[in-house]
């Protein structure tokens, strides 16, 4: 036993143990949501069945509002700090994205809480019961499953932690905290149980693989830098004299985990199936909030930890961005199901967001954050419309069923037309301003890769306009099918969500400067 000492417990204790400083005000949004989610579990266990939905909805709504207020308060104070040692970074992007998450979370919550469209709501309570068993038929008849609310809150608290995480370990915990509830939420659809469970299982298995990649990459980065904090990795990349092999392998594996969550090609294969199988309000939640959270994390990793390696990673992630835009746009053209169409559109949009992210500039960051907020509102509103077009079997998502919808329900078809035009990036919608901002930021860098990305972006935008406009043409100019679906009268919640989504899409298109300024002022990471 020479030259190799192991500290005894007494020696370990001799080291001065100090708690890291915790800024509870800055952590309040996450703590409030987590606490409310725990409370929600209790409500579900003890409150009488009839009043559960009211209590749960009110609880979730209040929690999200309080979280939003806490974020606004932090933003007013102008906090820029690392807290919990260096585990959390409370800076501009964190606060902007947390605020976005809270607002989009509230809008998505309105969709989740809607009960007018389907008796007892569109959810069941237990995800894992075998389809076709007596127990499963019973729970599909039973009304009033409210587990969906605490699960949504857990997911949102994880997302808020994810965008604030300043080291890989915290980021991984946050990733799991928001992923696990999402897997479950996907399997809770009351109708088409088998498709719903299939979606959840696919999402879970692929997500677990992605998490494994992430954690393996984290181990390699720790091996390189001797720390998992982003600032430490940045310094190590700057000063290291050893081979950067571990750094790049680690980054690649961490990136696989993150690119999976943002649905970038070639890690996108889960997206259409999951978007289609999950209950539509959950899909709306995922499409808006997961995108915000995952991109927030990716942006922080790229800008804070790997700033120095940008010349090396630009070609790789640039290629992925090009593939993402192309595959998303081209496959969107071939889709016959509206939810799958929006899934491929969401993949293509991940590509546009990557264009902004790869600008590696303040403008790139602020435009990507603006894009996330604008896209979130539009996509929630679009899925809200999908929940309204129904027949006896629930939602009629096949595109052929939407033919002639303009004649039957001009208002709903008009709203959907507006949203499709926003997705297509027509001026006076948020789709135009956000694409303009992202491409402008990339062009502003004036280097080869960003310019190439913008060219691909513009071309794919034109390709992508085709499927959107085809839906519009189909709704207004086609003859209605024999048994056309009816458009349900939206309840108050869906109406509110729809109105917020459409208004935001319009306002961010016509009068984007306040939010653009806000994003611009927020666009600075701390290390």
């Amino acid at each position, binding site marked *: *036993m*020479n030259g*190799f000492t192991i500290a005894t417990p007494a020696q370990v*204790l001799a080291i001065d143990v100090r708690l890291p400083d915790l800024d509870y005000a800055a952590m309040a949004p996450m703590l409030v949501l987590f606490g409310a989610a*725990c409370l929600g*579990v*209790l409500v*579900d266990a003890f409150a009488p069945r009839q009043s559960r939905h009211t209590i749960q909805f009110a609880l979730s709504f209040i929690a999200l509002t309080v979280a939003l207020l806490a974020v606004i308060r932090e933003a007013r104070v102008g906090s820029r700090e690392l807290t919990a040692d260096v585990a959390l970074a409370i800076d501009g992007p964190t606060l902007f994205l947390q605020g976005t998450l809270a607002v989009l979370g509230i809008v998505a919550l309105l969709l989740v809480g809607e009960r007018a469209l389907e008796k007892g709501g569109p959810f069941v309570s237990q995800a*894992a019961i075998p389809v076709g068993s007596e127990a499963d038929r019973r729970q599909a008849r039973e009304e009033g499953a409210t587990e969906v609310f605490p699960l949504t809150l857990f997911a949102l608290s994880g997302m808020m932690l994810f965008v604030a995480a300043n080291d890989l370990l915290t980021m991984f915990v946050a990733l799991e905290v928001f992923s696990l509830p999402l897997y479950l939420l996907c399997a809770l659809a009351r109708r088409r149980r088998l498709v719903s469970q299939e979606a959840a299982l696919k999402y879970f298995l692929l997500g677990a693989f992605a998490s494994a990649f992430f954690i393996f990459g984290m181990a390699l980065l720790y091996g390189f830098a001797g720390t998992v904090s982003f600032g430490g990795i940045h310094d190590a990349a700057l000063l290291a004299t050893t081979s950067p092999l571990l750094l790049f392998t680690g980054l690649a594996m961490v990136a696989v985990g993150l690119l999976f969550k943002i649905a970038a090609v070639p890690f996108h294969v889960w997206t259409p199936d999951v978007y289609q199988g999950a209950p539509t309000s959950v899909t709306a939640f995922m499409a808006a909030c997961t995108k915000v959270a995952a991109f927030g994390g990716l942006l922080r990793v790229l800008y804070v930890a790997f700033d120095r390696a940008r010349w090396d990673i630009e070609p790789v992630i640039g290629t992925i961005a090009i593939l993402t835009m192309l595959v998303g746009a081209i496959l969107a053209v071939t889709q016959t199901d509206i939810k799958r169409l929006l899934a491929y559109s969401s993949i293509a949009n991940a590509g546009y967001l990557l264009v902004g992210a790869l600008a590696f500039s303040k403008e790139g960051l602020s435009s990507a954050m603006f894009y996330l907020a604008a896209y979130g509102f539009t996509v929630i509103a679009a899925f809200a419309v999908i929940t309204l077009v129904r027949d006896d079997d629930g939602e009629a998502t096949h595109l052929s069923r939407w033919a002639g919808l303009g004649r039957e329900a001009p208002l709903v078809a008009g709203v959907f037309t507006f949203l499709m035009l926003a997705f297509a990036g027509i001026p006076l919608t948020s789709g135009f301003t956000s694409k303009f901002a992202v491409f402008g930021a990339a062009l502003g860098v004036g280097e080869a890769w960003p310019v190439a990305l913008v060219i691909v972006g513009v071309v794919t935008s034109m390709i992508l306009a085709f499927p959107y406009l085809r839906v519009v043409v189909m709704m207004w100019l086609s003859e209605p099918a024999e048994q056309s679906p009816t458009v349900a009268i939206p309840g108050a919640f869906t109406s509110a969500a729809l109105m917020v989504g459409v208004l935001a899409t319009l306002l961010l298109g016509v009068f984007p400067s306040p939010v653009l300024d806000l994003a611009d002022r927020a666009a600075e990471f701390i290390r």
Partner: protein
Amino acid sequence: MGGYLGSYATLGLLLAVGVLFFLVAMTANRLLRTNRPSAAKSTTYECGLDPVGGDWAQAQIRYYVYAYLYVLFAVEAVFLFPWAVIFDDPGFGMTAVVEMGIFVGVLALGLLYAWRKRVLQWT
């Protein structure tokens, strides 16, 4: 017994003795016993009963809840043991107790939920 790997020598010795013991016992067995095989003797031994049916068995799905809860509390115990050793040492104190309280509380919340939803009942 010096050097970096010295402390592993005992382990290696134990391993060697173990292997030797097994070999000697089984070889002695083989040399001493009689050997009269028959068809009945070469069938699968299943507690003295004749084996019937296929080898494809289905596990009762209800076990998954118990397996799940077991894993949960096994992991909890992993964190509880080191905590129990140090929580009253200087520098830890009340904060450590409260933190562990929150951790156990959140897990207990899950158990409470499972109990109220009657997942713990067998029938």
